[in-house]
C-alpha cells in the first residue's frame, strides 16, 4: 500500500524519511488525508501540488514542527522524536525553507555551526576549530564558499549553500528543499542541480518541492503529487508522462461554464493603451527579463505566472512601485515616470495590490474613506474635501460591488476578507482608470465574492478600461481576452483566444514545454 509496486533500485534503498498514512486537520479543513511518502537514501523525491494541496503541512510534519493527528513518521531507523526534542529532529532531517534561516550578522562558519558545540565545549567556542571544521564541510561537499564571510554579504544562492551545509554538517541525511529555485537565477539553479546530484551520490535523501515540473524531471527520481490533501500519485519520474502529472495536479474537475464563456472581444482601438517593451527589472524574488507586450482599451490581458515568475514584478513596474533597469513602459504613447506611483496614478493607472493588508486599505478608516482615498483630489476644492460628494461616490461603489457593510463609516478592518477585497478593487475603480492593474484580485475570498469582483472588473473592461490581470488562479482568467504566460522572468507563451485549455495552460505555467503537454489539448 505504502509504495506502489514498482521494483527497481528505489525499493532496496534504505529509507531516510517516511510518513505513513498521515492525517492532519486544522479546524474544519482536512489538510492531509491519509498521505504516505517515503524518501530513500540517495533518492531525490519530488513533491508537487497546487497551492493548498498540503505540501507545507506535510513538510511541517516531516520536520517536527507539527504533530500529525494520525499516522507514523520515521526518520532513518528511528521513530520520530517528540516535538520538543529539536536537537534530534535537527540531526535527522533538515529543511531549507524559502524563508532564509541564516543569521545575517554572523559569519558563514558560525551559521553552519549555529548553536552547536565545536570545541571541547563548556560553552566556550573554539573559533579556530569551528572555522576549520566549517571549511572542511565546504571542501567535503564541494561548496566553494569562504567561511569567514558575513552572511549578510552573501548572495541568495550562497545563503542557500550555507543552509545546506548546516544540515549536512549536523549529520542529517534527509534534506527537504522547499522551492529552492524560486529566487535563483539560471546558472545558480544549474549549480544547485549539480549539488543535488552529488548529494544523492553520497547517500543523502532529498525531498524536492517545486512548482516547476521541468525541474522535477531534471533532478528527481520519483514524484509524489498531492491534491486537496490527498496523495493522488506516486511513481518513478521516468514512468509518468508530463500530461499525466499535470492532470494529477489539476484533477478532473469539469470545466466550468464560466471559463469557457467567451468574453466579448473588443479589440477595436488601433493604438494600445499600455505598451511595454524590453522590460528588465532586477528583483530578489521574481526578476523580469526582456518582457514586451501591450494592452488595448477594452482588453483584459491575463499575465499568468507562479510566485517568483516575475508576473507581479511587471505589475509593480507598471504602477511605478519598482524602477526597471531598462526597457520602456508607455501609456497612450507617453513614457511613464518609472518608479513614481503618484505620477502613474495621475496618468490614469490604478492598482489592486497583491498584499491587500499591507498596501490595500487603511483598516482604521471607514469604508467610504477607503473607497475614495485615491480620488481625494477630485472631491476637494482648495484642499477642503466635500463629505457629501465622497459619500455619494462611495455609496455608488458599495452598491456596484455589493459590499456588505453596516455603513460607510464602518472600519474596513472589521469587514470580512471578501468585502475588504471589494473595497480595494472599488478604490481602484473609483478613479475611472484608463488602465487597471490587478494582482491576484480574488485571492482568499469566497466564491460569491469572487464572482462579483470578477464581474466588476469585467464591467470596467467592457467600459473601455484596459485591464492587466496578474494571477495564477484559473477562475480569474475567465474575464481575460488574452493570456500571457510568464516563467522565470520571461513570457513563454501567449494564448490569443479563449477558451483556454486548462491542462495545457497549467503545463506551461509550471514550466513544462507547452508542446509536450499537447496530449490533452484538442
Amino acid at each position, binding site marked *: 500500500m505504502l509504495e506502489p509496486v514498482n521494483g527497481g533500485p528505489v525499493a532496496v534503498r*534504505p529509507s*531516510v524519511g517516511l510518513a505513513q498514512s498521515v492525517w492532519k486537520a486544522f479546524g474544519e479543513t482536512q489538510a492531509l488525508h491519509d498521505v504516505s511518502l517515503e524518501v530513500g*537514501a*540517495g533518492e531525490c523525491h519530488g513533491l508537487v501540488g497546487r497551492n493548498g494541496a498540503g505540501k507545507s503541512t506535510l513538510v511541517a510534519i516531516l520536520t517536527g514542527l507539527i504533530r500529525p493527528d494520525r499516522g507514523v513518521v520515521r526518520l*532513518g*531507523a528511528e521513530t520520530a522524536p517528540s516535538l520538543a526534542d*529539536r*536537537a534530534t529532529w*535537527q540531526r535527522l532531517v533538515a529543511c531549507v525553507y524559502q*524563508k*532564509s*534561516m*541564516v*543569521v*545575517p*550578522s*554572523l*559569519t558563514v562558519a*558560525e551559521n553552519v555551526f*549555529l*548553536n*552547536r*558545540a565545536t570545541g571541547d565545549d563548556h*560553552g*566556550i*567556542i573554539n*573559533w579556530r576549530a569551528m*572555522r576549520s571544521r566549517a*571549511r572542511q564541510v565546504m*571542501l*567535503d*561537499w*564541494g561548496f*566553494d564558499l*569562504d*567561511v*569567514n*564571510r*558575513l552572511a549578510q554579504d552573501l548572495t541568495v544562492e550562497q545563503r542557500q549553500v550555507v543552509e545546506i551545509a548546516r544540515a549536512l554538517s549536523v*549529520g542529517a*541525511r534527509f534534506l527537504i528543499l522547499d522551492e529552492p529555485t524560486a529566487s535563483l537565477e539560471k546558472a545558480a539553479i544549474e549549480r544547485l542541480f549539480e549539488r543535488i546530484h*552529488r548529494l544523492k*551520490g*553520497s*547517500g*543523502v535523501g532529498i525531498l524536492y518541492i517545486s512548482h516547476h515540473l521541468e525541474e522535477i524531471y531534471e533532478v528527481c527520481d520519483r514524484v509524489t503529487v498531492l491534491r486537496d490533501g490527498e496523495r493522488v500519485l506516486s511513481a518513478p519520474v521516468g514512468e509518468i508522462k508530463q500530461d499525466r502529472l499535470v492532470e494529477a495536479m489539476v484533477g478532473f474537475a469539469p470545466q466550468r461554464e464560466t471559463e469557457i464563456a467567451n468574453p466579448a472581444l473588443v479589440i477595436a482601438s488601433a493604438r494600445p493603451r499600455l505598451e511595454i517593451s524590453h522590460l528588465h527589472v532586477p528583483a530578489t524574488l521574481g526578476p523580469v527579463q526582456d518582457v514586451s507586450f501591450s494592452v488595448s482599451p477594452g482588453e483584459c490581458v491575463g499575465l499568468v505566472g507562479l510566485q517568483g515568475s516575475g508576473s507581479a514584478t511587471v505589475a509593480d513596474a507598471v504602477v511605478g512601485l519598482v524602477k526597471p533597469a531598462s526597457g520602456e513602459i508607455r501609456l497612450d504613447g507617453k513614457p511613464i515616470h518609472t518608479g513614481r506611483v503618484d505620477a502613474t496614478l495621475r496618468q490614469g493607472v490604478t492598482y489592486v495590490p497583491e498584499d491587500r493588508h499591507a498596501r490595500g486599505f487603511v483598516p482604521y478608516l471607514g469604508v467610504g474613506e477607503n473607497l475614495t482615498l485615491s480620488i481625494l483630489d477630485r472631491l476637494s476644492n482648495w484642499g477642503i474635501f466635500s463629505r457629501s460628494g465622497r459619500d455619494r461616490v462611495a455609496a455608488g461603489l458599495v452598491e456596484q460591488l455589493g459590499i456588505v457593510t453596516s455603513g460607510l463609516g464602518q472600519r474596513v478592518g472589521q469587514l470580512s476578507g471578501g468585502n475588504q477585497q471589494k473595497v480595494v478593487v472599488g478604490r481602484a475603480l473609483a478613479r475611472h482608470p484608463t488602465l487597471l492593474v490587478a494582482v491576484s484580485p480574488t485571492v482568499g475570498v469566497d466564491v460569491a465574492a469572487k464572482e462579483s469582483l470578477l464581474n466588476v472588473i469585467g464591467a470596467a473592461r467592457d467600459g473601455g478600461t484596459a485591464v492587466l490581470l496578474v494571477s495564477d488562479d484559473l477562475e480569474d482568467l475567465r474575464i481575460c481576452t488574452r493570456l500571457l504566460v510568464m516563467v522565470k522572468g520571461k513570457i513563454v507563451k501567449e494564448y490569443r483566444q479563449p477558451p483556454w485549455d486548462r491542462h495545457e495552460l497549467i503545463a506551461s505555467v509550471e514550466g513544462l514545454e507547452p508542446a509536450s503537454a499537447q496530449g490533452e489539448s484538442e
Partner: protein
Amino acid sequence: MSKSTVERPVDRPGQTIAGTLRRHGRHIMVNWIRELALLPVIVVLLVIGAFVNPAFLTTANFINVAQESAALGAVVVAETLILLTGKFDLSLQSTYGLAPMVGAWLIVGTDGQGLGTNWNPFFGIAIVLLIGLIVGAFNGFMVIKLGFNAFIFTLAMLILLAGIQEGIVSGRTVYHLPDEFTYLGAQYLIGVPVSVWVTGAIFLLSALFLRYHRVGRAIYAIGGNTEAARAAGIHVDRIRIGVFIVASLLAALAGLMTAGEVDAVTATQGNNLIFQVFAAAVIGGISLDGGRGRMVGALTGVILLALVQNILILSQVQTFWIDAANGLIILIALGLARLIGTERA
C-alpha cells in the same frame, strides 16, 4: 545507519588552501574596520583636546574622564546586551537611580536623610543588586513572555521607578554614606579608581563572553534572525530574559559607582542617562534592530562621548551649550558610522 552509507565526494579541484587563507584574512580585516570606525575620530579628538587645553593630555585628566564615564560605560554594556537580542530597555536609567537610592536609604541614619533603619552597609549593597535583579526579571518577563512592547513598557517602568526613587525621600538627597557603600565609586587601586577597573573588567568579560561563549553567540543569532535561532534549538526567550536581568544588575552596579563617586544619592540620579547610553551604543555601531555590533564598538562610543564632554568643558564652552554640542557630535558620529558602514539602519 545512514552514516555508513555516506561517502563524501572528493575535493573540488581549483580550490587552493592559500587562496582561502588570503580571503580569510581580508574578510576578518574588513570586519574589524567596521567595528573600529570611530578610532580615527577619537585620535582627532585627542589632537583637538591637546590644542584646546594643555591640561587635556595629562594622566590626571584621563583618569578623571575615565572615572566620570565608568558608570555610563557599565550601563552601555547592559543596554548593548539587550540591543543585541533585538529588544531594548529604557528603564535602565531608573534602575541606575532607584537601586542605590533604596540601598542608601535603608543604611543611612535620619541625619543623612535615610529611613533610620541603619542597616548593615553590606546588606544595603545586596539590596542594590536585588533591586536590579527584580526589575530586570519583571521587565524581561513582561516584555518577552507576555509580549508587551519593549519601548512603551520600559518607558512606563522608567517613569514609575524614577517616581519611587523621588517619592521615598521626598525629593531629598541621601548622604553620609558609609565607606563600604562608597568603596566602588570613591576608592583607588594602583592609582586608578576602582570603578574604572570594574567597568573595564565588565567590558572585557562581556566582550569575551559575546565572542567565545555559546550563549554569547546565541545572543547574536537571536537578534539577527530570531526564527533561525529558534530553529537551531536556541532557547530564545530564556536567553532574552536572562539578558534583561543581567542588564538591570549592571545598571544597579553602575548606580552604586555613581553614588560612591559623589558620596550621595540624589533623587534625580539617572535622569536623562538613557540618551547618553543609546547614543554611545549606536555611535559604537550597535544596531537598534539587533544582532549587529561588538562590545569594542560600544566602548569606543563611550570613550568618544566622554572625550567630547571633557574637551567642551576644558575649552570653557558655556555650560548651557554643552548639550547642543553633544547632540551635534552624536549626529556627526552617526553620519560617519553610516559612511563606513557600521550602522546600516
